[in-house]
């Protein structure tokens, strides 16, 4: 039953005549307003004000009490949380109080030029006169209230229950509210404030404690743990343990009983969609698409090839024709001029062009390129300039020669590499065969050996890596910043560089500066530069390739093998992603269920150095006048518990047990709960305001201004009529 508000506007304000009092229970958590003599307050809302900014128009508006949270989406509430007019149980911010009264009277249906009704409003026990005066002033000045009376909520509640016959006219009221708890003794129906006591612990502290504990326990769900939600959890699940120590031991041992007492709040959670393997249809569709694309590519390539062949054939035809023509021409001069007109320097060039075109045509048509021997044979012809000394050649020919030299060397190199590759492959094949043979001979031992070798190699590599990077691979790429992290050692090269740098830095001005006289001096800069750090980083070394080979081999033949399982390389792997489960979205309430309300009995749990509820009874009894015989027993035989924080299951039993501890054996103890711990104070106040004598209890505006502050301080509502 969390947070019931009643904020419909009442329509019958006009039907009450001006002497009919309005009753307000101004509690720190709830504001209740209604008409005297009625059994229920007309309007109830949370005693808070928010001043958010409207998102579109940007104006700051005032929102009082609890409203449908959905509607608040139009407002920017980030700047202003809910604010209360109360500090502890005393009203101190009267601007907020005014907003609240505005809203309360508005919803009660007030529509005349002023509030022309006497008002009975509750306050805390021993309210500071400043607060009382300000409240009276506000009611008189702003609302035009004719007369006001102040009473204490706990007293009204006690008296109301006394009228119902639940408690006698002499007894104790234990009231635990939102911010404070009181124990107020009553003698012959009048509260004895001299003997009352207050501890600054209440429902607010319980909720806050629970909220803090849960948000520390579940930092991921902090957004779900709103004040309202936690308040609901508190009301639903919290209880008071008969004995904290034994109750907590149940949980510490992990008993079955504790398990039953554990509550779980499942947060909304939808399982993440499981990735289904693609259906056959999907696979087929994808394959078809791929096929289609490759088909198109093939077609394009084909078209390109045919166009190239066409082109080459044309060129070939042209060249053939040219050569035909050349045969017809006999004179050299004419040949030269003829060739020049066609763009060729000599006959040989034209012929070589012809050969080139023929060859590329063949290649394009996919025919076998003439074998290498043939190329070799033609090599002498191809590189015809190489053997001729430079001084016999013209500039053009020199250029040509250089080209030929280059061409020749590259082709040769290519061939050599090819040969080497072939050799290597053969070697490998041989090795493999040898190994296979070894394996066939003794597979167990072979595997063992392989493993041992793997381990040895990987360890070696690991060590080398450690030495080289010296753990500063955490620094990113080989310390770009130049700085080396705390506690990381430098490798030898880095140390040397550091030494050089420091000596260079501190050497200045000492003695004669002879630096630079020798050429070697300048080598220093080379050593200082950072480049010589990573000289052997680029080429993968032999061990690494060997390791890779062995690991791949092991993977082939050993099903139990995992690369890097022994070398500790797995530590650097990222932690595997664990899919979130239902359990991750649960908020478990175990010990918290009774740990939080326990602050009412042990305020030192939350660092408040005051007595708890049970001890307060003792304090209050000690403060009572001692001349009345048997007063204490009378008191303890009529104890009324009231206020919102006494609704926890187990409250009465715990109080009874606690009071028994501080009273002598055989003391009559009777603890009763108020009929409605939350509403009773308003109802009690309503009864008082409706009584005939009520007008004598109120004071008017003129009284207030004429009699002054001292009078207001001594103002006391009389509860016995």
């Amino acid at each position, binding site marked *: 039953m969390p947070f019931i508000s009643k904020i419909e506007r009442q329509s019958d304000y006009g039907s009450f005549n001006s002497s009919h009092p309005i009753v307000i229970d101004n509690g720190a958590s709830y504001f209740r307003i209604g008409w005297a003599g009625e059994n229920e307050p007309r309007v109830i809302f949370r005693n808070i004000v928010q001043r958010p900014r409207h998102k579109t128009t940007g104006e700051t508006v005032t929102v009082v009490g609890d409203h449908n949270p959905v509607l608040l989406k139009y407002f920017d509430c980030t700047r202003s949380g809910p604010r209360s007019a109360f500090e502890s149980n005393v009203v101190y*911010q009267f601007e907020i109080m005014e907003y609240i009264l505005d809203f309360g009277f508005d919803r009660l249906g007030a529509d005349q030029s002023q509030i022309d009704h006497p008002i009975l409003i509750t306050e805390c026990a021993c309210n500071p006169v400043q607060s009382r005066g300000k409240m009276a002033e506000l009611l008189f000045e702003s609302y035009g209230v004719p007369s006001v009376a102040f009473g204490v909520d706990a007293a009204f509640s006690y008296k109301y229950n006394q009228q119902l016959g639940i408690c006698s006219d002499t007894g104790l009221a234990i009231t635990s509210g939102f911010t404070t708890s009181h124990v107020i003794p009553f003698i012959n129906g009048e509260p004895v404030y001299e003997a009352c006591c207050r501890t600054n612990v209440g429902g607010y502290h319980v909720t806050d404690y629970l909220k803090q*504990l849960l948000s520390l326990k579940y930092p991921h769900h902090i957004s779900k743990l709103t004040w309202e939600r936690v308040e609901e959890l508190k009301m639903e699940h919290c209880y008071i343990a008969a004995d904290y120590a034994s109750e907590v031991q149940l949980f510490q041992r992990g008993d079955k009983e504790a398990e039953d007492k554990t509550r779980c709040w499942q947060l909304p959670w939808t399982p993440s969609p499981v990735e289904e393997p693609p259906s056959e249809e999907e696979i087929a569709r994808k394959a078809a698409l791929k096929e289609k694309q490759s088909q198109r590519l093939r077609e394009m390539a084909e078209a390109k090839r045919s166009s190239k062949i066409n082109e080459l054939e044309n060129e070939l035809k042209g060249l053939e024709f040219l050569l035909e023509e050349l045969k017809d021409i006999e004179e050299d001069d004419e040949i030269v001029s003829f060739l020049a007109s066609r763009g060729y320097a000599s006959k040989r060039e034209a012929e070589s062009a012809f050969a080139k075109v023929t060859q590329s045509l063949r290649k394009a048509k996919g025919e076998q390129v003439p074998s290498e021997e043939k190329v070799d044979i033609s090599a002498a012809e191809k590189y015809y300039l190489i053997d001729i000394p430079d001084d016999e050649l013209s500039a053009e020919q020199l250029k040509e020669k250089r080209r030929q030299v280059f061409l020749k060397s590259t082709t040769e190199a290519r061939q050599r590499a090819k040969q080497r590759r072939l050799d290597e492959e053969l070697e490998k094949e041989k090795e493999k065969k040898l190994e296979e043979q070894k394996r066939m001979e003794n597979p167990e031992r072979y595997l063992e050996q392989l493993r041992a070798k793997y381990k040895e190699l990987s360890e070696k590599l690991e060590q080398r890596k450690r030495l080289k990077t010296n753990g500063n691979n955490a620094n990113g790429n080989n310390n770009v910043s130049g700085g080396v992290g705390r506690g990381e050692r430098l490798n030898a090269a880095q140390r040397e560089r550091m030494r050089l740098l420091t000596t260079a830095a501190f050497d200045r001005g000492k003695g004669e500066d002879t630096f630079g006289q020798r050429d070697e001096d300048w080598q220093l800069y080379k050593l200082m530069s950072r480049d010589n750090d990573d000289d052997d980083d680029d080429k993968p070394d032999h061990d690494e390739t060997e390791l890779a080979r062995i690991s791949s081999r092991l993977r082939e033949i050993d099903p139990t093998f995992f690369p890097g399982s022994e070398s500790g390389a797995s530590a650097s792997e990222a932690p595997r992603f664990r899919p979130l489960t239902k359990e991750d979205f649960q908020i478990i309430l175990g010990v918290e269920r009774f740990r939080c309300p326990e602050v009412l009995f042990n305020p030192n749990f939350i660092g408040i150095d005051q007595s708890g509820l049970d001890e307060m009874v003792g304090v209050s009894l000690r403060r009572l006048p001692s001349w009345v015989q048997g007063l204490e027993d009378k008191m303890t035989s009529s104890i009324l518990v009231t206020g919102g924080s006494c609704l926890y299951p187990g409250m009465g039993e715990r109080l009874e047990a606690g009071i028994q501890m501080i009273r002598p054996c055989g003391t009559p103890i009777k603890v009763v709960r108020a009929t409605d711990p939350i509403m009773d104070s308003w109802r009690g106040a309503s009864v008082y305001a409706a009584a005939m004598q009520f007008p004598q209890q109120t004071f008017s505006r003129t009284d207030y201004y004429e009699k002054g502050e001292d009078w207001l301080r001594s103002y006391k509502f009389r509860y016995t009529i």
Partner: protein
Amino acid sequence: MEREVLEAELVLPTHMKFKKIQMYDKYPKGQARGRHWKHLKQIIQAENYENYPPHLPTYVNIETPPSMHPGKKICDITGFEAPYFDPRTKLRYANTEVFKTIRSLPNDYVQRYLALRNAAVVLR
């Protein structure tokens, strides 16, 4: 303003027919006004309670004195009874498992746990 907001009468009207002094007159808009209220501490101080006869009940002297019983020591994390105290984090703990967790807690969490019982280090 949106229709549903208006329908719910979420926003408090600025003008109230039943008031003799309106809010906007009392607290004019756009005018800087300092803090015009007193905190409870200041209120209490202004009351000059020390000038009153001691038997008169006041807001201050009705407060409960500190508890006569030694404070129950509970584990800051679990709420179990805590026989141990960690001098490094200043947290109380119940057993070795809790000790492990408190030693792995980041400092701000430690401070928040301490703040729960008003024992956190407050820098001023």
